[in-house]
């Protein structure tokens, strides 16, 4: 306390003022919009949303209903085959079965053929990561370092091509569709390409560079559960063989849930089938290779048309209808509450 003195004038030292800037930002006065939940905005948002949801819901339901779909569960229909496949030692024994069905009406337009699996956990973490994207790009990589194990190399060191659990468990039933027309059986022409994403077909999957495909896969071996090597997946079409085989690409795009459908074939609209599938009797001829009974799975084959909103799943349409109704009802409830409480809300009185 003792030797403190008040300010002695400083020697020629002009101190800059500590006065803060008077700017809108520093004074927290930035121009701003202060949204208020007014009765008008709330009610309009509810009624508009309600109307929108109801409209969309109706459209969705209508379009989903316009989809024609035939779904056949063939896991039990070929009971002898499924029994045969339960024992893995019979893997190379062929097994065929036929399933007949009748179309009462024509299915017009583009018809798509899917195979569906139930209770197949393609989304299991161990399964999802068991692939080597670098290998699928056609690169010569050391797949020992990928997540492919145990489906990476054989004991003798030969790498598997393609490696990993996904590739190994590829769906390998072949399904053909026959049209029984006046006691003659006509094979329905189906397209096996063009079923995958453009990026998958052209970017993610490439065969190794080489003069021909079998040379490119030289030094590798097929995955253990496969019946033939990758370069024999489609012997007829060079551009649908090896890693760029559409069936393979579609399989490699793992599904989100344990029940899923994968696109298998598309109807080639020529001659008799130019308008779609005519009504009549049909037969699926299935070469039954894929075992599902062990894990209590099911296999389906599906024929379906599509509309702008996709397939026949009614969920979204119904959800929209429910939400739209709820929003509209809520709008009325809010109106009622507002009308009831409005009187209380005057804090000053008009003179």
């Amino acid at each position, binding site marked *: *306390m*003792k*030797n*403190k*003195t008040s300010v*002695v004038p400083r*020697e020629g030292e002009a101190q800059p003022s*500590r006065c*803060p*800037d008077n700017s809108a930002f*520093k004074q*927290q006065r930035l*121009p701003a*919009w*202060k949204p*208020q*939940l007014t*009765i008008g905005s709330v009610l309009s948002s*509810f009624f508009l949303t309600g109307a929108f949801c109801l409209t969309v819901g109706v459209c*969705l339901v209508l379009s989903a209903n316009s989809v024609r779909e035939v779904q056949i569960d063939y896991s039990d229909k070929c009971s002898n085959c499924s029994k045969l496949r339960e024992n893995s030692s019979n893997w190379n024994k062929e097994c065929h079965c036929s399933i007949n069905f009748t179309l009462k009406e024509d299915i017009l337009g583009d018809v798509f053929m*899917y195979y*569906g699996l139930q209770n197949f*956990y*393609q*989304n*299991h*973490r*161990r399964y999802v990561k068991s692939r*080597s994207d*670098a290998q*699928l*790009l056609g*690169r010569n990589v050391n797949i020992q370092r990928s997540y492919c*194990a145990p489906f990476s190399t054989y004991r003798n060191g030969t790498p598997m091509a393609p490696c990993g*659990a996904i590739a190994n468990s590829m769906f390998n039933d072949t399904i053909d569709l026959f049209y029984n027309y006046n006691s003659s059986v006509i094979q329905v022409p189906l397209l096996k390409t063009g079923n995958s994403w453009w*990026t*998958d077909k052209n*970017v993610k999957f490439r065969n190794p560079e080489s003069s021909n495909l079998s040379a490119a896969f030289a030094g590798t071996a097929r995955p253990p559960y496969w019946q033939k090597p990758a370069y024999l997946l489609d012997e007829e079409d060079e551009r649908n063989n090896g890693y760029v085989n559409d069936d393979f690409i579609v399989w490699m*795009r*793992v*599904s*989100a*849930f344990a029940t*899923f*459908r994968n*696109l298998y074939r598309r109807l080639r609209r020529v001659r008799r089938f130019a308008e779609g599938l005519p009504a009549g009797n049909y037969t699926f001829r299935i070469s039954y290779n894929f075992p599902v009974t062990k*894990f209590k799975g099911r296999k389906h084959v599906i024929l379906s048309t599509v509309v*702008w*909103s*996709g*397939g026949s799943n009614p969920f*979204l349409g119904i*959800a929209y209808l429910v*939400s739209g109704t709820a929003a509209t009802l809520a709008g009325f409830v*809010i109106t009622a509450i507002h009308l009831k409480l409005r009187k209380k809300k*005057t*804090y*000053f*009185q008009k*003179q």
Partner: protein
Amino acid sequence: KRDLSQKSQGNAIKTYKYNPITFLPLNLFEQFKRAANFYFLVLLILQAIPEISTLSWYTTLVPLLLVLGITAVKDLVDDIARHRMDNEVNNRTCDVIKDGRFVSTKWKDIKVGDVVRLKKNTFVPADILLLSSSEPNSLCYVETAELDGETNLKFKMALEVTHRHLQEESALADFDGLVECEEPNNRLDKFTGMLSWRDSLYPLDADKILLRGCKIRNTDFCHGMVIFAGADTKIMRNSGRTRFKRTKIDSLMNYMVYTVTWGFGMALCALQIIVVLILLSAGLAIGHTYWEQQIGNSSWYLYDAQDSSPAYRGFLTFWGYIIVLNTMVPISLYVSVEVIRFGQSYFINWDLQMYYPEKDTAAKARTTTLNEQLGQIQYIFSDKTGTLTQNIMTFKKCCINGQRYGKLCKGGGGGGILIPAGGQVHTSSLSSNGKFLFYDHYLIEQIKAGKEPEIQKFFFLLAICHTVMADTSDGQLHYQAASPDEGALVTAARNFGYVFLSRTQNTITISEMGVQRTYDVLAILDFNSDRKRMSVIVRESGGHIRLYCKGADTVIYERLHPIGLVLSNLSNVFANETLRTLCLCYRDISQDEFEVWNKKFLEASLATSHRDEALDKVYEEIEKNLILLGATAIEDKLQDGVPETISRLSKADIKIWVLTGDKKETAENIGFSCELLTEDTAICYGEDTRQVKKKKKKKLKLKFPRTAEEKKKQSEKRRRAEAYKEQQQKNFVDLACECRAVICCRVTPKQKAMVVELVKKYKKAITLAIGDGANDVNMIKTAHIGVGISGQEGMQAVMSSDYSFGQFRYLQRLLLVHGRWSYIRMCKFLRYFFYKNFAFTLVHIWYSFFNGFSAQTAYEDWFITVYNVLYSSLPVLLVGLFDQDVSDKLSLRFPRLYVLGQRDLLFNYKKFFLSLLHGAVTSLIIFFIPYGAYLVSMGQDGEGPADYQSFAVTAASSLIFVVNFQIGLDTSYWTFVNAFSVFGSIALYFGLTFDFHSAGIHVLFPSVFQFTGAAPNALRQPYLWLTMILTIAICLLPVVAQRFLSMTIWPSESDKVSEIWYLGECGRCLFTGAGGGCPCTWQGWDEMGIKVPSNPSHFGIL
């Protein structure tokens, strides 16, 4: 003890922490000492274990690196600055005697014992004993801004003997004194030592030491000897790193306090989330075990060649889920909280309405961690002098020999006499002080007549008994007083003709009615807050020795001569007029008595240990049998806006306690004048607390029951006494808290802190202490939040405070505006932050029911990596920085709006769990709507869109829309920055996602970017857009409804205020005080607890 021969280390200093080699390891080590960073390090290590790694290595690494990197860069920049600073400082030069001559030497080469010469405006290189200076009276002025922040000049004074003999270079070179002193320590204001030179001993104290870091001012040059160098100097002892150790400790302490109350809540929330995380993971692990038994074991396609049991797989999955769900406690939380607090602090610093132009002081947030607590204050403890009052003293009245002078004249200058320059009293230009006002003619006539020796003695005492320094510039005499009281008294004496002209170490020159005389000062018995008095012993012209003493009435009365004149209750009369009183007295001392005493005095002043206590004892011996001369009364005006501030703060339910050292009467009157007490308040006094205990009274005055406590302590049954004390303390607090206002008078600095401690302990309330002087430091440090007012009494309070500004009235803006905003912003921020991370993370849990509890994530790894950092953090950060529910003007007009912070209405356990619940519900919607839509569906072109990657994109996009729109709903103050950040975040999401999903990046890093084409494919399907729109609508519409209904049915106060303000024409009209032209009147305001102003224009803001 140390002496010169014992040379210690050099003067080089090292403040930097790292060198190029140690930077990385040390800095990382420092950072990982923080719990949050360590937690993420553990997660990172878990992720490195291949068996349990469920997320890619980069999901945690990238955010962690970002956080660590930012901190590291900041540390690096700081440290480089310190390196530079050290280099610069160590290479400064100064003149040191070598071989009999002054040689320019670098600072780092200065040794203990060197004799140095310091020039004007240079820094002092080490702790130096001042030997001589170029100024008369061996004075040396220093500025200590770097040491304690005080910008005023202080003087140091060398020993007279060294000053006289050590002016020449040769004499300095031959100087062979021996210094014995204390060990190096960090006390800036203390030094004890002894100089033995030429066979005599001289006491050394802090007045003779120039500390490192000071700057020499107004002194051409001075000489000194280095006592402590380098790391031994006081400034370095205070902190190895930064200059202000004290503030460091303070902030640490505050940090701890903060952790215990508010932040603890946050940490607890985080902890609870971690518990939830562990429980959920355990549950999911059990689920996985079960699933493996039932399904997994028979699924041939999942074969992994490892013959693990389902239980073991479940165990691994537990860790896997710990990793997957770790985003529930987001890494960016702590960083964001710090950024927001930092921003809030800057807004406080920048506030123009808390800038005090007269002294050029802006408000300053010295601690950045406490802003939101400013919005929760329940108790304010305020000092009086200098905090409520201006601490600008004016001499108003006096009482000499029983006769009172000076009329009470509140009506302005009309009835008073202005004593003009030179005035009627006598004619010397030295006595001019144009502003002096005194309202009594009679006293002046008395002085002129010169008949009353008591009156002469009275003013002589005022002119001689003080520690004021005088200096003459431009022919004008200026006084530099340590305390405003002293300045006022010396100035008063000057105006009455007793002009203090100058002082040397041993003499004081004054001009008595125009006659200049010099007196020998034999001793100065210093002032301190325990003694509450000061004395000087002078030899008068006749040769006889007299002691003059001035001090507080209580201490003086105890020491009066039994037959002395007693001013009955005069000081009480002054006190009732809110004037500060000092009693003046004198005593004649015989030569013999003085010599005996002087010996003891010298002995005590040479003592190396407990010098202060010894001195106090010696002082006590001579300050007795005093003869009372009279008393002075000094007025200290209230600061501007104090009553308004106090009434507004009490409307905000903040209880204000004034703690003052004043007498009860003064305190009570101050209470009335600042409207803390009003005419209709019942006042009860603490002396009769026991009777009051059962009755509920509105007001209370307390004398702190100290004596009773002390007596009890001494009693043998200590335990019972403790219990009794505790009970009494509790009674005191309970009783005091019943009152709307409490004034504690006669409290010492320690008791101030004790009162704060009691309220903290028994009320669990958040407290704020505000003060301006050194006596408030204890209280400021004890309270949760300390506020310092930079006033007349130096910077000590400010240095130990968390916030500082120039005037008491800024407190209302600090609390009601900044505190409230900070609280609301932080609460909004935290609630939203927990919400958004729950909404984000819990989707994995719902998904696990459909993927065999295999810890498969519902989103792409890259999305998880950047979600918290890029996609959702900026909007909420901006809300945390900018949001305003009502404007500053309104929150000042309606102090009741402050109550929500005190009651902790915005972030408590209920709110916390509600936000978690909200997040959980949102995550349910975000998962199950796409789930239903995906179940058996195809794309518009026939391809199956039900693939994992499209699903991940759909869920992620919905999430981004929902959380960003949700913050949009939460934002009540939409600036363009907010709009930009909300829409920018969504745009950034799409931009980055399309990049991550592009072909090129996949070809470059095939195994890191696997989602090639997923976003473009998914987002061109109207079906998926419809799914997203539905998800967003279901997530947000209920929130809108809930907000609106709760606003309608249970409106909060800010809802009401903003509604009236923004919607009601006439509400706005009434508030702006446009006069009677409004088309409406007030109605229904009482239910809001807002008092309707009879005249709205009085309701305006300061």
